[in-house]
């Protein structure tokens, strides 16, 4: 089976979208229910800093990779069992 490598990024982008929605719901809850204080502000700041750090780490390790390359996998994969 061959396919371009950038296809593996689509599930990752989907996960990032879910992550962003959940994070926004968290922040919305804080603001909506009047729980904005120094502690919650610090927690949100640390959360955003950590998120940026993880995303930066991901970007830095993936940036040298050529995602346009075609990869081949499951070369010997077949749905038909071998006949003996």
């Amino acid at each position: 089976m061959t396919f371009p490598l950038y296809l593996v990024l689509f599930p990752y982008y989907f996960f990032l979208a879910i992550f962003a929605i959940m994070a926004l719901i968290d922040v919305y809850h804080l603001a909506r229910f009047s729980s904005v204080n120094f502690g919650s502000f610090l927690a949100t700041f640390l959360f955003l800093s950590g998120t940026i750090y993880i995303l930066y780490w991901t970007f830095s390790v993936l940036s040298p990779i050529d995602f346009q390359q075609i990869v081949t996998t499951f070369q010997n994969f077949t749905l038909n069992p071998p006949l003996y």
Partner: protein
Amino acid sequence: MNYSTIIRQKSYEHIIYVLRQSPWMLAPRVIVLIILMAVGYGVFFLLKLVTPDVFFHPLWGVLLLLLGSIYALTVWLFFYTSLINYFLDLWIITNDRIVSIDQRGLFSRTMSELDLYRIQDVTSESHGLFATIFYYGKLTAQTAAAKDFFIFDNVQNPHHMREEIIRLADEDRKYHAQAAQM
């Protein structure tokens, strides 16, 4: 801090205490975060040690790095969500009532209130080594009706807060008695 919007504060009412769980309750969350992050790093370094070639594979190397990123972000988000639950779980004590806001997960929230003048019994409990050292425990406020009671776990200074609630309940009872005579 504007809590008046969430409790619909009455004109004569003012907020006296806002109680949250003891800050020591954040410690288990931080420990779980450290363990989960350590497990992630452990698996990463174990794979690097056992099969270093897999990281140079054009497909599996990329998949492993993306999975590592997803794992780290998921753990980080769960940690933040547990902190949000901590901040949203509170008791607001006014001169008229106690409003309990119980946050269970991100989409489950229970709000209930108890009039101070109806409170008959307040109990504070502190069990265990850590609760004794760090001075937190359980606070229970109960009315004459057996089913009307509030429980707030792991609150800081539970014995002091019990005395304060009893004092406020007495004051509120006097206020209501005077209002009834007029």
